[in-house]
């Protein structure tokens, strides 16, 4: 039997460009965040955590939105293209990592500024629930079964999460509130932040978004290869079984003779 080979290359000129841009902007954030920007009047050096915290939070939420949209596309599209499912899965994986980073950097900042690692405020609590929910989502993806089964199950779970999150957020909001009010998007358009700090923060958001895009593009290509491999292995097993039964029937018929 001929062994089928896969080209193990997932990079294309576009992903290379995205990757290079991500690297450059991340370098900018590191230099800007650690050396160029000034200390905060109240928070001191702790403010530098913001250059990681805010962009990772943004990317995590973006990732979960991408997962929800891709899942809805899979369910609604007539062809049920597996591409949607893989993008949903890849995006959720990256989202979970970034959400964990958000919680980690946030609790370090909280320890320095509030004096405690954790506070039971709506935004923190909802974020923690989001993390657990998507860890569950990834577990559902790993349940096994056919690709179609995986796609259908996880798409439903992703959409149920969209129902769950506002309910959790609202109920915790009713429960109590204490989080640092958003300072850039405060609504009145008056941004109270040093120019270099704001630039670094924005570059951070762009850099982390590019990193997210790069990771998801690569991850969904790797997932496509894994799916293809699973299918070939299945085909091979089926062929083997078919050969087996053919051989057996030849032997049996020769016995009968």
């Amino acid at each position, binding site marked *: 039997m001929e062994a089928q080979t896969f080209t193990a290359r997932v990079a294309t000129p576009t992903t290379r460009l995205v990757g290079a841009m991500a690297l450059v902007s991340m370098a900018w954030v590191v230099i800007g965040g650690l050396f160029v920007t000034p200390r905060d009047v109240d928070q001191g050096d702790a403010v530098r955590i913001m250059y990681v915290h805010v962009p990772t939070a943004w990317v995590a939420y973006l990732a979960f939105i991408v997962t929800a949209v891709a899942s809805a596309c899979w369910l609604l599209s007539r062809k049920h293209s597996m591409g949607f499912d893989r993008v949903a899965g890849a995006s959720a994986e990256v989202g979970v990592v970034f959400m964990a980073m958000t919680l980690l950097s946030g609790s370090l900042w909280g320890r320095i500024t509030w004096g405690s690692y954790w506070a039971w405020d709506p935004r923190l609590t909802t974020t923690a*629930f989001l993390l657990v929910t998507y860890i569950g989502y990834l577990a559902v993806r790993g349940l096994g079964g056919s690709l179609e089964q995986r796609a259908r199950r996880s798409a439903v779970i992703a959409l149920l999460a969209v129902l769950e999150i506002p309910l959790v957020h609202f109920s915790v909001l009713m429960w109590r509130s204490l989080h640092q009010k958003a300072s850039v998007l405060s609504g009145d358009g008056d941004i109270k932040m040093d120019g270099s700090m704001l630039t670094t923060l924005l570059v951070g958001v762009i850099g982390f978004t590019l990193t997210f895009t790069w990771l998801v593009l690569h991850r969904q290509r790797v997932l496509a290869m894994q799916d293809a491999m699973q299918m070939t292995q299945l085909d091979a097993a089926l062929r083997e079984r078919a050969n087996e039964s053919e051989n057996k029937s030849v032997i049996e018929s020769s016995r009968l003779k």
Partner: protein
Amino acid sequence: MSTQLSLGRIARAVAAKDLRIELRSRVVINQIFPFAGLVMVMFAFALDNDDVLTRVAGGLVWLATLFSLIIIIQRSFAVDSADGALEAQRVAGLNPAGIFVGKALAVMVQLVTLEIMLFFAAVVLYRVELHSDGAVLLVTCVISATAGLSFVGTLYGGLTAGARGRETLLPLLMLPVVAPVLIGATRATESAFMSGGAAVSDGWPWVGVLVVFAAVFGLGGILSFGSLIEE
């Protein structure tokens, strides 16, 4: 083509079947109720303070309910998936939405019975005083919270039953989703108990949250249950 059974008839039949099995096997009465009672006693050991127990009694009742919910749901689907009954129901052409509502109804009946027992346990063990002013609030809270818990439980129970042998996943998937019910039902119950000086009127907005929750997941379950249990 045979005549289609209405959703209500399927739901009634499925619920009656599940409850009949429970009545005959007595697993819920002989094992799950004593377990829940045991949890209530364990809370008292852990907290070790009469005033604290009275203050947090509402939350403990609902926590014990959540723990029991996990077992009741696993049991409800283990009975079905053990001999392929869930598949048989689907192959028989029953509307999955009807199966969902029926199983959720059966869970609801079991949970309400359990909660009544737990409230009595709270009165006896935690020295909670029931007030007639809070009675309507308490009953409304119990019904709406239990509906929400049953819908979510049945939904995720169906998913994990579809993926055979992965029941360990149920608590991880289900508990984050029912967090709003825990918060809402606890606050409403505390208002009904008037614990910590809470007023009965404070509880009603929480009942609103519970009703919205039950409606959202009831509808979500009716729409998606078929996709989740499909093999």
